[in-house]
């Protein structure tokens, strides 16, 4: 069974021509600033902010040619899923020591303050064969008491 080497959440993953990955800005907190007179953020709100997970699996000789699925799922603070689980299939190749998997989200939920959970697990066939420790992301709302100095309202 592939052995988890890295599982991380970040702003972006850049991969060069030789498949070497660079993780840009790991984070575990999101702060949403609200202007003084603005309404509260609705519970289903999202921020159009890209986020990536990066996983690297150490391949064992017996894994070569087998079919695996890595699943990532983001959960609201109350445990409800935000969107369907994202599944990435891979089949380790002979001669490769690691299998890298990136998953991209195009928006992050910000409507509910609290701890969001990024779950990740590995399946083979219909069985879960490994579950990673989750990544916890804290979302906070910060209501500003004054307008920012360079703020220009939209007319």
């Amino acid at each position, binding site marked *: 069974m592939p052995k988890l080497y890295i599982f991380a959440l970040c702003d972006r993953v850049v991969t060069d021509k030789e498949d070497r990955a660079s993780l840009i800005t790991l984070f575990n907190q999101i702060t949403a600033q609200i202007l003084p007179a603005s309404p509260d953020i609705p519970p289903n709100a999202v921020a159009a902010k890209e986020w990536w997970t990066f996983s690297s699996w150490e391949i064992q000789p017996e894994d070569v040619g087998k079919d695996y699925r890595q699943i990532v799922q983001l959960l609201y603070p109350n445990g409800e899923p935000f969107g369907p689980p994202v599944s990435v299939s891979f089949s380790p190749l002979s001669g490769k020591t690691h299998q890298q998997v990136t998953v991209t989200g195009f928006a992050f939920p*910000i409507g509910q303050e609290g701890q969001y959970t990024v779950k990740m697990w590995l399946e083979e066939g219909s069985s879960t064969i490994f579950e990673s420790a989750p990544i916890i992301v804290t979302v906070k*709302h910060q209501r500003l008491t004054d307008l920012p100095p360079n703020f220009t309202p939209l007319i």
Partner: protein
Amino acid sequence: MNYVCPVCRFPKLIYPARDYHICPCCSTEFGNDDAEFSHAQLREAWISGGARWFFGNPPRYWNPWMQLINSGLYESVPKFAHAVTTSANYTVGLKTSRLNEPLVLSAA
């Protein structure tokens, strides 16, 4: 076969968006509502009303903003916050090796 609502971009309309069919997501009646208003105007009205699901229960995982984003309509999603920033509350200790010694990283 599924069709996409040209107003809210719900991707699973059972019928084409015409002939007085009604979108279960945004309630647009095609051939009636969109005879008077453009799809963009109807979308704006739906969003300003809270982008709520119209008929019955929404599909599992449904989120109106993700529906718009997934269809490429980023600009239609309201800016719910003035600014959204990420940060990390990690603590990292770094010990740099001297020449000819292996680099050592340690968590603080």
